[in-house]
């Protein structure tokens, strides 16, 4: 298997939050080593959510009145933040980790390219429950 950039970023962030200095992950095919620096400056608070595909960004489904998520909303891992429309098909922009939606980086109707940041998520403290 291979790791996505999102997964690597999430692993690094979790290791940082846990106060680890280094972390190694090893399988038969690959080895991944994080070296983490803890200084007094606060760690980067938000994590970008990038577009999984090219498409036109929608913050809500046309059959629903409310947007999928608004800044300040708590998101479960796997929650849908928005849609990318290509022709008659939607692909989801997914919260790859639980957290609070800090900001949407693109406006509804805007064309988004693959890998472009669409939203920012702030990690939740471990104990805080997340809504859907």
């Amino acid at each position: 298997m291979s790791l996505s950039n999102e997964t690597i970023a999430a692993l690094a962030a979790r290791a940082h939050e846990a106060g680890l200095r280094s972390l190694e992950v090893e399988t038969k095919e690959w080895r991944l080593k994080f070296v983490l620096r803890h200084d007094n400056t606060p760690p980067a608070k938000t994590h970008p959510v990038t577009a999984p595909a090219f498409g036109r960004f929608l913050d809500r489904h046309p059959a629903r009145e409310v947007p999928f998520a608004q800044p300040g909303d708590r998101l479960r891992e796997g929650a849908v933040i928005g849609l990318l429309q290509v022709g008659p098909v939607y692909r989801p922009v997914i919260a790859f980790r639980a957290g609070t939606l800090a900001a949407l980086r693109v406006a509804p109707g805007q064309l988004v390219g693959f890998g472009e940041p669409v939203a920012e998520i702030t990690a939740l403290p471990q104990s805080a429950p997340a809504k859907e």
Partner: protein
Amino acid sequence: MIEILETAPLNTVQDTGRFGFRHFGVGTAGAMDDLALSLGNALLGNPLDAAGIEVQMHPFHLRVTVDTAIAVTGAAEAKLDGLLLPPDWAVPVRAGQVLSLDTPPKRGARSYVAIAGGIDVPVLLGSRSTCLRNGYGGHKGRPLSAGDRLPMGAATATPVPPGGIGAAPMESGEPLTLRVIPAAQHDAFPEQVRARFWDEGWKVTMQSNRMGLRLEGTALRPEKPFDIRSSGIVPGVIQVPPAGQPIIQLRDANSAGGYPKMGVVIEADLWRLGQARPGDTLRFRRCAQAEAVDALRAIDAYLADVAATAALCRGMASR
């Protein structure tokens, strides 16, 4: 396998219908909103007429016993292990995950659960649809009940990517305005009665189900009673019984009937009737046969576009 964990009455296995046996008195049965069922199949890469589950009463909970993909289309809000799915959505599911349709939809009446490979109940007279009225087809000829296990067909399409894919709604105009072609007895009604049929709204009553919608409005009465013989009817036929309150015959209707026929809702608009609910007001708009054929072609083109684009998205994600 699909395991039915919990279900309200009258949820059934349906495909897009049983055709070719009307002359033996065998009605079509099939999904009341066949567009929604086909849309789910299009997202999954199934044949568009593969069998799924029609959910018209809630709650409905199912669990899959193998890793596969499902699509939920139509009216309801569905949750997969508690996470809300967007409307008209296909998503991968792992063995043991639970799909739940808990609350009646805010709009519309019916939802469809399609599964990769389709539901593989036995084919009877060319269809897997349940005929509730006569108790054959589908799963043992009856509505689903808790504990039922439904076999799944072999899925051949590229799997749905993590997070799923959805379908944008078809441009469909006013959902409760139905295009109608005048039928045999239309011209025999007095002119002002005909005018009321076309101009006034018709309320869907509680006496409505898969057999037909009973409507309520200003009674449509002929000058003198009709003396006609029973003849074949198809889903969409609008009959006017002596009391003057129209009935629209639907998927589980008789294959013949003797009430005068005012018109027939075009095939391309039958799905709208599958989403009409008691209290809704329907309106009829006169339509010629050419427009009815064009409307069917538009639906076919939309479904083909969704199927092709969904296949592209599934293919890109699997590389």
